[in-house]
């Protein structure tokens, strides 16, 4: 679905994020909301329209691999994400790549699961850090992905986030519906697995 109104064109970022998500949870039903324009930027109104569409479409999980820098809109974003959570829609979002300098929206909200990027040679990495965020970390440097054409690698919290979304898709299929329990069990974890959510065969 194109929320920018400039046509649904494919792009590296969305393709790469989707490839990681599909690798973990290949049988999900994917809803693609294009919220970036041809200039690779979006607006809050576009994002809000997409969130409304997620609610109407009875989505289970929303993957957000971008951050909004303008904190003056925090109350609106918090309301939108909270409206989804009230309907059982979980939001998983990237922490951002600003190190300890800054964390944007919706990453800094308690109502989302915020995912940082981790690498064994650089534990602190470039992930945004703020308060008790990120909630958990996944691989985020030189991750193998599908590109617009062929394959390649991608680094950053954008690509660590679909690992968490994939895990939560498995959790939803398993029947786990308690958001607070999920967040509690994943808190502070590096590369969490189904075992961290106490999912057993």
């Amino acid at each position, binding site marked *: 679905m194109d929320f920018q109104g400039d046509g649904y064109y494919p792009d590296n970022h969305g393709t790469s994020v989707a490839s990681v998500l599909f690798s973990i*949870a*290949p049988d999900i039903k994917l809803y693609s909301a294009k919220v970036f324009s041809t200039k690779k930027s979006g607006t809050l109104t576009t994002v809000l329209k997409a969130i409304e569409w997620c609610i109407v479409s009875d989505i289970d999980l929303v993957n957000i691999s971008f951050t909004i820098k303008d904190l003056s809109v925090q109350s609106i974003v918090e309301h939108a994400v909270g409206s989804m959570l009230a309907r059982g829609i979980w939001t998983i979002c990237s922490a951002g790549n600003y190190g300890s300098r800054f964390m944007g929206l919706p990453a800094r909200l308690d109502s989302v699961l915020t995912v940082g990027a981790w690498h064994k040679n650089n534990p602190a990495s470039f992930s945004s850090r703020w308060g008790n965020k990120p909630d958990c970390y996944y691989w985020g440097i030189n991750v193998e992905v599908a590109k617009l054409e062929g394959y390649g690698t991608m680094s950053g919290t954008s690509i660590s986030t679909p690992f968490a979304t994939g895990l939560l898709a498995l959790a939803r299929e398993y029947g786990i519906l308690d958001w607070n329990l999920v967040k509690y069990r994943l808190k502070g974890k590096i*590369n969490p697995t*189904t075992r961290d959510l106490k999912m057993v065969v």
Partner: protein
Amino acid sequence: MQNRKRIIVTDTTIEPDEFRDVDVIHLKHLGIVIIEGTTSNIEKLIEEGKVKQYVEDVVVKKSSLVVNPEKVEYIRQEMPLSGKNVKVALLDSGINTRHHFF
């Protein structure tokens, strides 16, 4: 309608032009020949020894294409789950759904 069959021939000594009653695609850059025809015609070719090194075509499912397979296995911890019936929205840029990965 007769059952059709497709085989992938890696015997580079064959001459595709000598085959009749079947469709032949010669992938010259790969050194591979794909032969498609009715099951009986394909089996006849094999029985006559006209093709030797070959494999039968197989279906490639979406789920068999994986990036970061070791990470995926690590996350799943052998759980037989795939996200079935879970609806996930990506608020992102567009996806190249024609990419063979998908």
